[in-house]
């Protein structure tokens, strides 16, 4: 008898602890804190915590006239779709978040999106460029451009500025993002009058690409397109150079992380990739973010961090506009966002979860990412 009384009171304290502090806005974050692109999970976390600090320093988010503090619940999806699905379930069912930021990779966002959609919880993926993420969904948004746009930009750049007649592609066949953009590039490059002489694949976690690269070397392309993440790309470029390949290298936004240069070193010099933004572009919103990020974390901003930061403010903006913490109202306010002045550019939604915005081409020069040109 006594025991059960104790248990009951302990339980009620617990319920109160979790329930009583229900004031404030809870936003879930699904990020690859560990796993193969963990460096990017760190950028996500940095950007979210910086935004949380800024928002709460001003008293919180103004919802219907009252200010409410915001708490971000950051969970690790290990960059694995199955783990992302669990994280989304947990954030929605246990933490009862008002919205979700994430995930970063397309394969993880693809796993989480149906869950968010079914629960009617708004989701913004900062960095997932695969078209399927938002397709046929009302509650799923993204802060970045999509791969058909990016693939066309890269193919145009390779044909135009790099004057490539032939190209080869090596991509991770087990990842939605890599596979999607590889196929777009193949079509766009051919359409622009070029010839694809090699289209090779590998699997996530492969480290030895010399067999594929030797085959590509035999076809002697002018340019090799590597639409892969920053953890694989340095190995691919290094191994290609060690095999004596003399072609140029080009990539996509998956390259954008300082790890690329840390690992690739001088082998990465003179390569190009498409990206969401460049720190060199002169925009007041960007400059302010870059400065406070560098001050707080003593490192350079990457696109994932910038897009995550934009996602947070897109959401905060929508919540303030909705005036209440109702997921449907937040969704409608988000979908109606016009000319939002973000770090990565001006963002407008036009009927779908995909924003209208441009891309930039980045050149690796002297161990730095340098702005090359803009694509709209």
């Amino acid at each position, binding site marked *: 008898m006594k025991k059960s009384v104790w248990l009951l009171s302990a339980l009620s304290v617990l319920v109160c602890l979790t329930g009583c502090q229900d004031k404030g806005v809870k936003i879930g974050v699904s990020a690859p*804190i560990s796993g193969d692109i963990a460096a990017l999970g760190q950028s996500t976390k940095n950007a979210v915590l910086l935004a949380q600090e800024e928002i709460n320093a001003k008293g919180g988010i103004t919802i219907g006239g009252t200010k409410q503090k915001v708490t971000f619940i950051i969970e690790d999806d290990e960059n694995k779709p199955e783990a992302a699905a669990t994280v989304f379930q947990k954030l929605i069912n246990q933490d009862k978040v008002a919205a979700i930021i994430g995930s970063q990779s397309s394969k993880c966002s693809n796993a989480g999106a149906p869950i968010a959609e079914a629960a009617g919880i708004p989701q913004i993926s900062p960095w997932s460029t695969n078209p399927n993420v938002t397709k046929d969904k009302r509650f799923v948004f993204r802060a970045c451009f999509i791969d058909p746009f990016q693939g066309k930009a890269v193919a145009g750049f390779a044909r135009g500025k790099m004057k490539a007649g032939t190209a080869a592609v090596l991509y991770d066949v087990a990842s939605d993002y890599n596979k999607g953009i590889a196929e777009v590039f193949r079509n766009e490059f051919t359409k622009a009058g070029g010839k694809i002489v090699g289209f090779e694949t590998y699997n996530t*976690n492969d480290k030895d690409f010399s*067999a594929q690269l030797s085959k590509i070397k035999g076809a002697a392309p002018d340019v090799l397109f590597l639409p892969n993440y920053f953890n694989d790309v340095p190995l691919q470029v290094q191994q290609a150079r060690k095999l004596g390949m003399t072609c140029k290298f080009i990539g996509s936004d998956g390259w954008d992380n300082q790890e690329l240069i840390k690992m690739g070193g001088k082998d990465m010099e003179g390569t190009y990739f498409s990206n969401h933004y460049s720190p060199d572009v002169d925009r007041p919103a960007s400059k302010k973010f870059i400065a406070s990020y560098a001050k707080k974390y003593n490192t350079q901003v990457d696109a994932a961090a910038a897009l995550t930061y934009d996602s947070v403010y897109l959401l905060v903006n929508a919540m303030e506009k909705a005036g209440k913490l109702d997921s449907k109202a937040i969704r409608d306010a988000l979908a109606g966002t016009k000319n939002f002045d973000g770090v990565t550019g001006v963002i407008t939604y036009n009927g779908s979860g995909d924003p209208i915005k441009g891309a930039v081409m980045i050149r690796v020069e002297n161990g730095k990412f340098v702005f090359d040109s803009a694509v709209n």
Partner: protein
Amino acid sequence: MLATAIQQLLNAAQLGAVYALIALGYTMVYGTIRLINFAHGDIFMLGGFIGFLLVAIIPGLPVAAMIPLAMLLTAMIGVLIERVAYRKLRNAQRMSLVITALGVGIFLENLVRILVGPQARQIPAQLPNKVLRLANGVVITEDKLLVILISLSLMVILWIFVNKTLLGTAMRAVADNRDAVQLMGVNLNLIIATTFAVGSALAAAGGIFFGQAYSIDPYMGIDLGWKAFIAAVIGGIGSIEGAVIGSFLLAGVEVLTVAYLSSNLKNGIAFGLLIILLLIRPNGIMGRAALKKV
């Protein structure tokens, strides 16, 4: 055409050498205590990280000292793992041992992840890595050549150790009949510890070569461990020559599939062929069927 083929064979030789260094550990441990040590891929990973940390802690440590030192440290950890996790279970059900081994593997992955971080890293290049141009546009880097040569010499040393020394003879005797050997007054624990030490040391060498040529991360042991285990099975698990043959065969099939069919089919064809091979020779290429006791 011929140049590309030779290039691909060199690629296969390097991959096969790394597989072999891991596969030997699987085969030796299985030979002595009939345990498929699923943590062995993670010991390979650990060896790579120990090499990485040695270079980071002692700047300018020459590679000729780093490799043996890392091999020694990893060997000690291998022995420790056997002492802590496996010895008590030596006579328990086979299943308990396998599950413990899986647990040890996951423990090692997470330990390294917490201590060193989840990012992929490269052991700073220490082996000479000039590109050598052979005839016809075939190229090989010095480190690739060294990896193949060092691995092969380690394998030869192991073969001499197992076949020509007293300790090696005892190991083979334990593999043959553990109980009878104990009755002859052989220190079983010492023999098994030696097996783990040697297997772990070879895996460490593999990890360092891998970390130098490619990159290391806490989870790299999983995939490579599986492949090396499969190579050991093809060769005939328990057989040292078999592990080496199986490793080069697996690497060869993988690379040639990419070279002449499609990179999409790499794992499918490689493992399909292996299944066929095992249907024809269930005990592997060098394996022999167990004698039935009547």
